[in-house]
C-alpha cells in the first residue's frame, strides 16, 4: 500500500512540475492522471496492489469534497444579489447536461448494438 501511495504522489508531483514549468491552465493532478493512464496502458495489466489502493481511496472520494463544500457556505456572500440567477442557471444547466449526455450516449450505444 505504501508503494502504491508513493506512485500516486510521484505522478501528482510530476504533474505539478510540468504544469508550473510550462505555465499550463491544466491542474497538476490531471496531468499526473493522464501520464499514469499512458503508463498503465503500455503494461500488460494493472499491478494488483495499485488497483487495491486506488479502489480503496476512490470508494471514499465523496468524503474528500466535504471541506471544499463547507467553504461554499462560507463564501455564499460572493453570490451577492445575483444568487437567483446563479442558482437558476446551475440547476437548469446541470439537469439539461445530465439529460443530454446520458441520452446521447445511450442512443448511440443502442444503435451500435442493434446494428452489430
Amino acid at each position, binding site marked *: 500500500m505504501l508503494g502504491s501511495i508513493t506512485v500516486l504522489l510521484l505522478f501528482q508531483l510530476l504533474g505539478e512540475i510540468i504544469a508550473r514549468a510550462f505555465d499550463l491552465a491544466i491542474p497538476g493532478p490531471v496531468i499526473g492522471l493522464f501520464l499514469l493512464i499512458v503508463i498503465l496502458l503500455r503494461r500488460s495489466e494493472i499491478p494488483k496492489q495499485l488497483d487495491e489502493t486506488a479502489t480503496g481511496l476512490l470508494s471514499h472520494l465523496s468524503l474528500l469534497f466535504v471541506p471544499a463544500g463547507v467553504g461554499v457556505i462560507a463564501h455564499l456572500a460572493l453570490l451577492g444579489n*445575483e444568487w437567483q440567477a446563479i442558482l437558476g442557471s446551475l440547476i437548469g444547466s446541470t439537469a439539461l447536461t445530465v439529460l443530454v*449526455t446520458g441520452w446521447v450516449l445511450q442512443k448511440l450505444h443502442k444503435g451500435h448494438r442493434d446494428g452489430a
Partner: protein
Amino acid sequence: MEPNFQDVWVYLSASPLTALTATLVAYLIGDWIYQRSGKQPILNPVLIAVCLITLILWITGIDYWTYFEGAQFVHFLLGPATVALAIPVSALIRSLKGSYRAIAIALFCGSVTAAGSAIVIAELLNASMQTVLSLAPKSVTTPIAMGIAERLGGLPSLTAVCVIMTGIIGAVIGPYILNAAKITHWDARGFAMGVAAHGIGTARAIQINKQAGAFASLAIGLNGLATAAMIPIAFALWQWVSGG
C-alpha cells in the same frame, strides 16, 4: 480540582484534530442516514456532512479558515485521488474496443450543453457579464474551471463556489433525471454524471456501480480538456459575431 473547561475549549477550537475528526464524523453520519434511507439521492452524504459542519461552525462561532486548517488533510487527498482515477479509466479504455465515436459525440454534446445552457439561462435571468463568465465553466473540475474563468475575465473564486454547488446539485438531482428519462445503461449514467457534475458526481457514481464510476472518471478528465479548449474559442467567435 475543578476541570478547566475554558482551557479544553481553547485547545479544541484551534486544534486541527477537532476539525479533522468532525469532518469524518459528519461524513459517517451523512453516509449512515443515506444508507438507512435506502439510498435516496436527496440525502447525499456530502450535502448532509456540509450542512452538519456549517451548523457546528455557526453554533460555536469558529471561522471557516480555522476549520480548514484541520480539514485540509482530507482536502489534500483530492490530488492523489485524482491521479488514482487513472486505474479505473485505463481498465475502461482497454475494454472499450471501438466505441470511441459514441463517447466523443456524447462528450461534445455534453460539454456544449453544460457551458451553453449555463450562459443562456444566466443571461435570461439578467446576470451580469462577470457572473455569466464565471458560470460558463461550472461543470468542469475546480482547478481547471478556475483557470478558464480567469482567462475569460470571470471571477475565479465565484467559479469555485459555482463548481462545488454544481457537483452537489448534480449528485442530488442527477439520479432522478436519469431514472425519469429511462437512461438505464451504467456507462451512459456514469458518463452523464461525470460530464455534468465532475468529481462529486463521479464520487456518487463510483458508490453506485463500478462500471458507471469508471465512465464518470473518464468523463471528468475529457470534459476538463474539451471545455478548456472550446470555451475560449466559442467566446472569441461570439465576440466576433456580436461585435460585427
